C-alpha cells in the first residue's frame, strides 16, 4: 500500500460505500475499543506517576544544588566574626556559586519541630548555618574542609549531597519507570491493534476474496480496514484518557500536607500531556493496521 497524499485524503474523508463494504466486525471492534481505552487509562496513571516523580526529582535536585551547609559553632561573641570569615573563604573557593548565612527566622523555622516556635535563639548557643550553593562542577569538599579548619576553627562542613543524591536519582528512576511504562503501553497498543486488525482481516478473508473478484483495488480494501481501526483506537483511547484524567483529578489530594504521595496528579501544563495519548494511539493504529493490511493483502490472492 502506497502512502501518498491521495490515499491519506481518502482515508480522512472516508467513503460511505467503502465503509459499508467491509462488514461491521463486531467483537473485534469492541475489543479494539476496549483495549485502547483500558491501556490509555493505565497510561494516564503511568504519566501521572512519571510527571509527579519528575517534579519531585526536580525539587530535590534543586535542593541538591544547595548541596552543603556550614555550621558555625562558637561562643556568642565569636559567631558573627567566624561567620563572615567562613563566607570570605567560600567566596574564594572555586565551584561555589553562592553562599549565605541563614537569617534568625529561617533557623527558627528549621528548628521549630524540635524546640517549638518560641525558641529564644539569642539565649541559646545555637550554631549559625551557612547555605552553600555549588556550581554544576561542584567543589572540592576535602579541600574546603581543610581551609575552614585552618581559618575558621568553629566551622563544620556538612555535605548534604551525600545522602540526598541517591534520593534524587531514585526519583529520576521512578520518572524513567513511568515513561517506560507509558511507552510500553503505547507499544502494547500497537501490537494489540496490529493483532486485532490481522484477526479481522483473517476473519474477513471471504469478504476480501469477493471484493477482489469484483475488481476492488488493494488500497480500497485496506483503507476500509485502516480507517476503522484508526477510529476505534482514537475513540477508545480518548475515552480511556478522559476517564483516567478524571480518576487522577478526583483522587483525594490529602490536604495541604507536602510530600510525594499527595503530588500524584498533574500540575499546570501537565494536564495536557495525557491529551497526547489519543493522537499517538490513533497514529500507531493507523500505521499498524496499514502494515497488517498490506501484508495480509499481499498473501491473499
Amino acid at each position: 500500500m502506497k502512502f501518498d497524499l491521495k490515499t491519506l485524503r481518502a482515508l480522512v474523508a472516508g467513503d460511505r460505500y467503502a465503509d459499508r463494504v467491509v462488514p461491521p466486525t463486531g467483537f473485534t471492534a469492541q475489543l479494539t475499543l476496549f483495549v485502547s481505552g483500558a491501556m490509555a487509562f493505565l497510561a494516564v496513571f503511568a504519566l501521572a506517576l512519571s510527571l509527579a516523580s519528575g517534579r519531585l526529582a526536580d525539587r530535590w535536585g534543586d535542593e541538591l544544588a544547595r548541596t552543603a551547609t556550614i555550621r558555625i559553632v562558637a561562643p556568642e561573641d565569636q559567631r558573627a566574626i567566624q561567620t563572615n570569615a567562613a563566607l570570605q573563604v567560600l567566596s574564594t573557593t572555586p565551584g561555589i556559586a553562592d553562599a549565605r548565612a541563614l537569617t534568625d527566622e529561617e533557623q527558627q523555622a528549621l528548628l521549630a519541630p524540635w524546640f517549638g516556635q518560641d525558641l529564644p535563639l539569642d539565649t541559646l548557643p545555637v550554631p549559625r548555618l551557612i547555605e552553600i550553593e555549588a556550581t554544576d562542577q561542584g567543589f572540592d569538599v576535602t579541600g574546603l574542609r581543610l581551609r575552614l579548619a585552618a581559618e575558621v576553627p568553629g566551622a563544620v562542613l556538612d555535605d548534604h549531597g551525600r545522602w540526598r543524591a541517591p534520593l534524587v536519582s531514585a526519583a529520576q528512576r521512578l520518572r524513567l519507570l513511568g515513561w517506560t511504562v507509558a511507552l510500553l503501553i503505547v507499544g502494547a497498543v500497537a501490537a494489540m491493534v496490529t493483532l486485532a486488525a490481522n484477526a479481522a482481516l483473517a476473519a474477513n478473508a471471504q469478504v476480501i476474496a469477493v471484493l477482489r473478484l469484483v475488481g476492488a483495488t488493494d488500497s480500497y480494501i485496506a483503507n476500509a480496514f485502516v480507517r476503522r481501526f484508526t477510529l476505534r483506537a482514537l475513540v477508545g483511547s480518548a475515552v480511556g484518557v478522559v476517564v483516567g484524567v478524571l480518576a487522577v483529578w478526583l483522587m483525594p489530594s490529602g490536604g495541604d500536607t507536602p510530600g510525594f504521595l499527595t503530588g500524584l496528579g498533574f500540575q499546570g501544563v501537565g494536564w495536557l500531556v495525557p491529551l497526547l495519548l489519543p493522537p499517538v494511539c490513533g497514529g500507531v493504529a493507523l500505521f499498524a493496521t496499514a502494515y497488517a493490511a498490506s501484508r495480509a493483502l499481499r498473501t491473499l490472492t
Partner: protein
Amino acid sequence: MIELENVAYSYGGGELLSDISVKLAPGSFHFLTGPSGAGKTTLLKLCYGALLPTAGHVRLFDRDVRSLQRDDIAKVRRRVGVVHQDVQFLDHLPVSDNVALPLTVSGRQAETANGDLTELLAWVGLTNRSDAMPPELSGGERQRAALARAVIMSPDVVLADEPTGNVDWDMSQRLLTLLVELNKMGKTVLIATHDLSLIRAAKAQVQARVLRISNRRVQLAGADL
C-alpha cells in the same frame, strides 16, 4: 481478448494442465467441459488472472498477466464478469447491494445503474428477493444473483463456472438466454459446465464452440454432442 499460449499449470504436484493454447476472440461463445477434477475451474482462473501459469503465456486484453501490477489486475477484473462455482457474497449486504457491488468498488454510483439493476433482478427472477440477505437465499437463487453480479457492469468478457448447477431446467434455459443475449451484444462468453444438455440447448441458439479438457489438454469437441 483472452489468449492462452502453450500454458501449463500445476498446483505443486504433477501438471494438471499442459501445453494449452486457447484464444477467446471478441464476441465468441465457448463452453468448457470435462470430468470432475479435470481442471475447468483452474483454466477459468487462469483466464482472469487469479492464477499465474506455471509455463506459457496468458494475455488479458493484450497484456501479459505476468506484467500486470496488482492494481492492473483489479482493473482487468472490472472488464471480466466472473461467476464462481462456490458462489460468495458479502453476507452483511442485501442481494441488491451485492449485485451492484462491482459498480460500488469501481467508484461508480449504484444509483446511475438503478434501472439496469431492477431489470437484471427481474430477469434472473430475484425481484422479490432483492432485499434478502445472501444467507437467506436458496441454492439456485444464489447462482442467479451471482450471474447478475457478473454481468451488471456489462463487462467485455463473462466467465461462468457451472452457472446452472443448482437450478431447474426452466431457469437454466432462462440464464442461458441471458448469456446468449449478452453474446449477441458483442460480449465474449465462456461457460464451464458438465451439463451436456445445456450445451445442446445452446447450440440451437448461438454458434458455440465446445472445449473439452481431457488428459491435461484442451480439445475442440466435435459434432458428438
